[in-house]
């Protein structure tokens, strides 16, 4: 492709597998992102195909984070086909997610683990965070 002025702002999907996948978790990556054109917020996503527990230990961040759970069938946007148990706060208050949802986590709020207890249909699990670096602070 000929040299372009704006092509550098596009990060395209890469086939590289990550070494951290668990059974039932397909983490898909982008080509080497370098500096994301100087932008400081991020997103990544995983495809969850079977029950699994992620983010095992309760933790918090110094930045806002949004955990997004949605369907791989955008034609039926109200059906998740899975059940996720999420712990929020130092109390580890349990919440069940069984419809497409966003969990908004202000900086400092303890959360996790994220327990995909039932996965009848694959889930798109997208993590959005307002920082260039993803750093966890133990609860």
């Amino acid at each position, binding site marked *: 492709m000929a040299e372009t002025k704006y*092509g550098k702002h596009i990060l*395209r*999907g890469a086939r590289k597998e990550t070494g951290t996948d668990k059974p039932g978790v397909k983490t*898909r990556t982008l080509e080497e992102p370098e500096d994301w054109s100087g932008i400081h917020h991020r*997103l990544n996503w995983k495809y969850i195909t079977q029950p699994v527990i992620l983010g095992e230990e309760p933790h918090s961040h110094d930045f806002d984070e*949004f955990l997004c759970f949605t369907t791989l069938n955008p034609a039926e946007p109200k059906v998740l086909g899975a059940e996720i148990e999420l712990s929020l706060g130092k109390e580890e208050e349990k919440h069940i997610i069984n419809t497409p949802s*966003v969990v*908004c986590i202000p900086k400092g709020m303890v959360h996790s683990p994220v327990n995909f207890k039932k996965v009848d249909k694959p889930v798109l699990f997208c993590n959005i965070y307002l920082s260039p670096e993803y750093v966890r602070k133990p609860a």
Partner: protein
Amino acid sequence: MAESKYGKYIKSLPEVAAPPRRTTSLPNITVHESTVADIGGFDFNFNFVGIIAPHVLGDPPHKHDCDEILFFIPTDPDNYPDLGGEAEIALGEEWEKHTITTAAVICLPPGIQHAPIYMKRVDKPFYFGHMLLAARYGSSATPASDLEQ
């Protein structure tokens, strides 16, 4: 009303169903100032839109004064990074065309004009969306038509 001779010549607004339109996109998860006001709000908004069939997005060319990310997420992990379709986005005031056929993230620092966005082919529905560092979408956008004024 009494039977009339000529009333039949008056045709009021008929009760007809709206013409069926093909569904081309469906809203999905979102965070917007109105959805998070009860938890203090965030200087951030995003949405996921399911792209179901070809169409052109309604947004005219515009730019923001804050960071934005646009994303294309495929829904078939087994064929990753194939998008399951083809989109074309115009970037810059030159409308430099870029074709997207894989998962992609487009990083737009402040001031880079973007759109139109043409969802040209949809073999399998995929997600498109934005993530903008402002409490609501459009709060910091400048339509291209205003750029030279």
